[in-house]
């Protein structure tokens, strides 16, 4: 026990500090990017249906720029899951187009999205992000199993390269595991997420689709993932952050897009907006009280 405090005498920050045992970076420094923002991913009027065949995305348009984090704020079930899947090739686009640096990706497979340099931290790590009965090694190359680095030819996997690579991820991203040869099923949730983040960030991606990247993590893990996201942004990646945690979105994003019933109803600057305005947009989609749309 480190100490007890009365609930009304403490605040989030203190509590978090006690739990982690040191200062937590909850307010983050955002370095300004020089020069005109360079659009990387262009999404134009995209429509898609959900698993039941109902229209979940009703014409979504936005640009994702280099060196920025675009946060998607919204109440769960307004099309966020479908948006992430459409942007990673996992769900077909019904109408509209997606392009990366002028490279047309509409109608392409997940493989093409990966090869184009789009990394993806999926919302459900047990289902999508990891093969639970694969070892760390095997999971570390998921998505890049055909990369020349790991498979010099289609008849040969370079086992040593895979081990070295996995060990690097484990080291750099602090995955706690007895060895890289154990099944990821046996890792804690936080370490599983670290492995996913490590894998996706080690690809040197141009775009990162991060869906609920900190869900289910302890505070140390959360902090770590957030730092990494910012670091990727600073290194030039374009990050789309989809999160149910409004505070997280506000804290990390350079711009905030609000999604409501399958549409982007507003894009806001976190400096000039507040929880109240975003909350209203998220709940009603109404622009009545919101300021002008920011592009």
């Amino acid at each position, binding site marked *: 026990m480190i100490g007890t405090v009365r609930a009304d005498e403490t605040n989030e920050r203190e509590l978090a500090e006690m739990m982690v045992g040191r200062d937590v970076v909850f307010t983050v420094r955002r370095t300004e990017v020089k020069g005109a923002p360079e659009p990387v991913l262009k999404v134009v009027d995209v429509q898609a249906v959900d698993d039941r065949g109902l229209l979940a995305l009703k014409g979504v348009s936005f640009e994702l720029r280099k060196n920025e984090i675009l946060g998607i704020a919204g109440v769960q079930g307004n099309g966020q899951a479908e948006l992430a899947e459409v942007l990673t090739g996992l769900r077909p686009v019904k109408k509209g187009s997606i392009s990366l640096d002028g490279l047309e990706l509409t109608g392409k497979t997940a493989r093409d999205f990966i090869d184009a340099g789009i990394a993806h931290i999926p919302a459900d790590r047990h289902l999508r992000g990891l093969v639970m009965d694969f070892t760390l090694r095997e999971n570390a190359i998921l998505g890049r199993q055909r990369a020349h680095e790991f*498979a010099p030819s289609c008849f040969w996997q370079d086992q040593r390269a895979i081990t070295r690579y996995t060990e690097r991820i484990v080291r750099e991203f602090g995955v706690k595991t007895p060895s890289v040869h154990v099944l990821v099923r046996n890792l804690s949730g936080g370490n599983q997420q670290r492995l996913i983040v490590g894998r996706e960030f080690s690809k040197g991606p141009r775009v990162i689709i991060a869906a609920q990247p900190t869900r289910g993590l302890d505070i140390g893990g959360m902090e770590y993932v957030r730092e990494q996201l910012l670091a990727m942004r600073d290194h030039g990646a374009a990050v789309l952050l989809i999160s149910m945690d409004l505070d997280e979105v506000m804290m990390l994003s350079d711009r905030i897009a609000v999604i409501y019933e399958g549409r982007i109803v507003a894009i806001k600057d976190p400096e000039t907006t507040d929880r109240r305005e975003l909350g209203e947009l998220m709940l009603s989609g109404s622009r009545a009280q919101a300021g002008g749309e920011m592009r």
Partner: protein
Amino acid sequence: MKRSALLLKGSSLAHELGITALSILLAFGISAFIIWAAGFSVSAVFINLWKGAFGGKLALGSTLTKSTPIILTSLSFLFAFRAGLFNIGAEGQLYIGAIVAAVVGAYLNLPVGLHVFVCLLAAGLAGAFWGWIPGYLRAKRGVNEFVSTMMLSYVAIGFTDYLVAPRGPLHDAKYWANQTARIASTAALPRIMRPTQVSVALIIAVFFAFVVWYYLFRTPAGYELRSVGLSPPAAEYGGIRIERKLILALSIAGLLAGLAGAGEVLGTHFRFIGRFSPGYGWDGIAGGLIARAHPIGAIFAALLMGALRAGGMQVQRSGAAPGDIAAVIQGLVIFFIIAPTLIRVLIRWRKR
């Protein structure tokens, strides 16, 4: 961390082998009880089982002959199983492969060496085609492959029945049996353990066990196949086209079963005989399960099953008990091996 490390140790190869060995022991123990309860001599049955399976060159030959096709059909089952599919139709794929091998072997004139190779290739492709159909139906139309592979098995058996029947085009009128003409000597797989029926087919089967192991565990394609089997959503996320993998998995499964049929025709019977298989395709399911879906394990699983079959023959011949006790043992082995937590529960009981 220590606790989880211990748990992880549990899923090592040694542990897997331990569970398998315990399952086999348990099955033999319960069979002993059944034999005793049925009023037969337990020791006489087991001695004859051993004698028939390994007691002498002929017995060993008998075991190896029976194991040969089971290695390949076990591989067929486990290959599809690794992709999350149940190939119950190895029997039909085996028949299709066998009939094609017999036709190519009997009616094509090719030099030694090449002829056998062409026979095997044609049989493999034919089997692959028979596996491709349910694979396609599964991938494109969502047809449960368990049912479709099984139904296609019956279709294959009926179709080959027709081909070699007196009204069929491949019937050899010289014999009073439903069979094709004898294959050319250039198409025969040499026997390697005379006077037994063991042929080069055994070497081919073992070779393919290693090929399948290499494919599954040492190539990117095998990696992709296994990820589809363990988690389709994650595989999709990893940019793997699941439909293609499903079709491929069943096609390769068909290819392996087709080779099993070719081995029987080219190495054992030297012709296609209507309904020649005593259920090697079904045995492959058992073999794949006993091997716990490991290709190298399939060699040993098939050996166990071949030994049980051969030993069962000796038990029958000696009059110690009905030879079908071997089938009971086989059923029990599978039953214990497939319940992963059973053995663990038993061990816990013992410790209590």
